[in-house]
Each structure stands twice: as C-alpha cells, then as structure tokens.
C-alpha cells in the first residue's frame, strides 16, 4: 500500500490538455504519479498517449489545465523507436553516457542489473531487438531517475523477451523506487504489474486498477475494436461523451465515430 504523502507525488496533471493548430490532441487528463508507482497509459493510435507523456515530462506545456512536477525531477526516458544509423559509431558503453557523465563502475553495475554486462563493448547496431531494449533500459536507469518513462517498451520484442522486460520493470520499481510511466498498446502482460491504468481516447475514457479497467465497458469497447477488427455492438455511451466534450470533434473524428464503430 502506498501511503500517499505529498512529497511522494512526482507529477500531477489536473484537467490538462493540449491544443495545437486548432486540433485538440488530448484534454481533461487527471493523473498523478507517485514514487514507486507504475502508471500505464493505454489507448489506440492517436489517442493522446504520447502527448500525455510529453505533458508529464514537461516537453509539452499544457494549453488547458495544469501540470505540476516535483522541482528538479529527474527523468529517464526509453524511446519508442530508436534506429541508430550505421554512420554513427556507437558502443553500448558510449550510449550509456549519452545525456550525462557516469563512472565506468556505474556503467558496469547498471548493465549487470539488466543482464547486459557482456554487451558493454558491442556496437549498438549489432544488438538484437531484445538486447537493445535492455540496454536502453539501462541507459535510462543509470541516471537514477525519479521518473522513468517507457514508451512502448516491448515493441518488436518476442513474447519471452516481453515477459522478461516486464519483470525488469518490476525490479526497477522495487529497487529504485522510481515512479514509472508506461505507454502501451499491448494490454495483456502489462496489466498485472501496473498500479493504475489510464485508458485514453482523446480524453480519459476509464481508469483504475488493471482488474477494474479490464471489466469496464469503455475498455472492452476500445480493446474489442482493436482485437476483433469489427464491432457490431452499438455501445455508444462512450462516444456521446466525445461529442459532448467536443474534443473528438476537434480531432476530426466527429463523422468518423459512427462509421468508425460500424466499419471496423
């Protein structure tokens, strides 16, 4: 049980949103991340997961609502896609000091912690998808971040690798007490490890513990659409909210919605 004393709260988003060039990317997001807590953002493409994460990290300023962050908050970031061109010679150990200076001992220890110690001298272009992901985890961890942001951390990793990476996330949480913000469209494995799931579709559709979210009709609808590829059920409780709060209208989904639901 996390005792929520104020100093443990790393980031608070209250009713936060971003409008850019007349388009609302996301709005009305309420979200807190405390130390040692795993928060997972799920939702379809274009639902505002990345935008919400950027609000949390401070890369984007909210145009609506507010975002408060612990002063001096240190962030470690594991990017979604990172393709390092062959023209850039980069070893694993050099990658570890990409955004800050670290001692050789710290590099060794961190690589060891993710099970990638033997890769230290390897060129990043030579690593497999799973190895590269571990190294990227290590690179973010070596910063001793207060908040670790993982953007689609298991993309392109096979199932056993996926399980191992989630185990690693749990370990990182337990040993470092970092807050963890995870962005995912992979809804199965992550559910077990996470404290709060926030389901986005331009705004917060539903939220709660994994098991609560799993039972919510909004989640089932979003998830069902993605998995089944077609949705015949006319379950539009969720869509009326979209029309009412107007955010989806601004995203150009107004006409798309009914067609969207029937067409898929």
């Amino acid at each position: 049980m996390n005792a929520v004393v104020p100093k443990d709260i790393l980031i608070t988003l209250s009713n936060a949103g971003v409008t850019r060039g007349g388009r609302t990317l996301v709005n009305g997001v309420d979200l807190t991340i405390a130390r040692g807590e795993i928060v997972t953002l799920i939702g379809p493409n274009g639902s505002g997961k990345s935008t919400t994460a950027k609000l949390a990290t401070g890369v984007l300023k909210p145009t609506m609502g507010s975002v408060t962050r612990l002063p001096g908050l240190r962030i470690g970031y594991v990017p979604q896609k990172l393709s390092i061109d062959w023209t850039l010679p980069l070893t694993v150990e050099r990658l570890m000091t990409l955004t800050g200076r670290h001692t050789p001992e710290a590099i060794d220890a961190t690589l060891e912690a993710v099970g990638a110690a033997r890769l230290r001298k390897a060129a990043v272009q030579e690593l497999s998808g799973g190895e590269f992901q571990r190294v990227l985890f290590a690179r973010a961890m070596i910063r001793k971040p207060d908040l670790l942001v993982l953007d689609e951390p298991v993309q392109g990793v096979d199932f056993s690798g996926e399980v191992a990476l989630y185990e690693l996330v749990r370990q990182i949480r337990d040993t470092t007490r970092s807050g963890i913000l995870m962005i995912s469209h992979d809804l199965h494995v992550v559910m077990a490890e996470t404290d709060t799931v926030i389901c986005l579709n331009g705004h917060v559709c539903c939220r709660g513990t994994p098991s609560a979210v799993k039972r919510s009709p909004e989640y089932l609808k979003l998830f069902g659409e993605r998995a089944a590829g077609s949705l015949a059920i006319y379950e539009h409780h969720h869509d009326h909210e979209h029309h009412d709060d107007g955010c989806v209208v601004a995203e150009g989904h107004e006409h798309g919605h009914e067609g969207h639901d029937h067409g898929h």
Partner: protein
Amino acid sequence: MAWCLKLGCAMFGDYFTRALIAGVGLALVAGPLGCFVVWRRMAYFGDTMAHSALLGVALSIILSMNMTLGVFAVAALVAGALIVLQRQASLSTDALLGILSHSTLAVGLVLVGFLTTVRIDLMGFLFGDILAVSVEDIVIIYGGGVGILAILILAWRPLLASTVSPELAEAEGLRPEASRLVLMILMASVIAIAMKLVGVLLITSLLIIPAATARRLSATPEAMAAVAAVLGAVAVVGGLFGSRTWDTASGPSIVVMALVIFLVSLAVPVSRLFGRRVPHGT
C-alpha cells in the same frame, strides 16, 4: 608585415606553406563538424548553405562589408529560411533545398555580373584559390577554427544526444532545437572561412568525405571526429603536393585526394561492423 618578420616566420612568406597551414587548419575543423553532417544526413543542406556563399560574396562587395562576415550571414539566413519554410510550406525538404541551393547560387552569379567596378575572380570563389591565402586569412581560419572547435566540444553531449534521438534528448531535459541551431551556426562559420580555400562548390566535400572515410575506422563518435580531422589534414597536404607536382588546380586536387583516401579505406577490412545494419524498433 613587421610583426610577421619579428616572429621570424619566414615560412609564412612562402605561398605554398601558407596554403598548407591554412588547409590543414580548415580540415581539422571540417572533419569533426562533417561527422554531424553525415550522422544527421545534412549533406545537401550543407551544399545549399555553401552555394549561398557566392550570394554572400556579392552582397558584401555591394555593401562594402567584411566578406567572411557577409558569407556567414547569408549562409545562416539561408539555413533559417529553410527551417521556416520546412514548418510552413507543403513542399518536401528535398525540393526546398533544391530551390534554395540553386537560386542562391544563380542570384549570386547574376549579382557578381553586375559588379562592373570591382574585378572578381569568379573561378576563385567557385573552386577556391588556396594558393592565394594571406597571413590574415590564416589568422581568420585559426581564430575562427579554434572558436568553432571550442563550441563543438562544449556542446558535444547535447549535440550528439539530439542526433541519436531528439525525443530522448528532449525528455531528459536537453534542447534539441537549440542544438540544431548551434550546428547551423557552426556550419555557416565553417563555410565562411572555407570558401576562399576550396570554393563554394567544393566546401561540403571537405565536410563529408573525411567523415565518411573515418566511419569505418572508428568505434565511437569521438574517435570518428578525430580520425576525420586527421584524414582531412592528410587530404589537404597530399592534394597540395599533388597539385604542385602535376600542376593541377589546388582545391579540386585536395578533394580528389580525399576521395582517393576514401576509396582506399573501402579496401581495408578493418571494421567487422561494416555492412551489419540491424534495424531496431518497429
């Protein structure tokens, strides 16, 4: 020049030695900066800035201002214009570069044609005239070069981080947009000091060829920058001696020498990394 004699630098009296000193100084700066041009795929971008240098020459003569400053200003303006156009226009970056590159070169050539009062060595500006380098030019090259290298070293980590992933750099509190701006200013500076030596049409080759050659011989970005600097210097020395031996144009000879080194490096089986591109993500 009294101070020159006082320093006892009779060596500066020889035009060939001056060319060697100036060229090596330029190569030492162009190599490391050229690595970023290669990593960030900015070759055509660099070419565009370089082509605009002729416009800078014409404008600085018309406005009777310092030519190095004029060239720098125009190259930086063209870079800025490109960024603005990239954000607004619907044309691809590729097409925008093509438009800017050739139109600035053409406008420069037309303006030079209007300058009837001043005699301009057009070939010298297009292909460089390293053998005409003065002591003053050497001072500018080394002064500017030290400045450029100092900024490059100071900004190295954020520059490299935002080259690897702007998104990652931004999330961890660095500013990739600022890094990009720094890089453009450095490129404009190098173009300004390099124009006299190798000419607007050949400047980017000194940025790109040594860096591309260095890739196969290096395991880290820092090593690649250092190797590129050394290889560039070797190309300058080799090219200049070649041009003296065979009485060929000096600027092009340097570039040919750089190309020869590049081709030779392809035959050296040093790097087991070569050809092993493992894509990540997706």
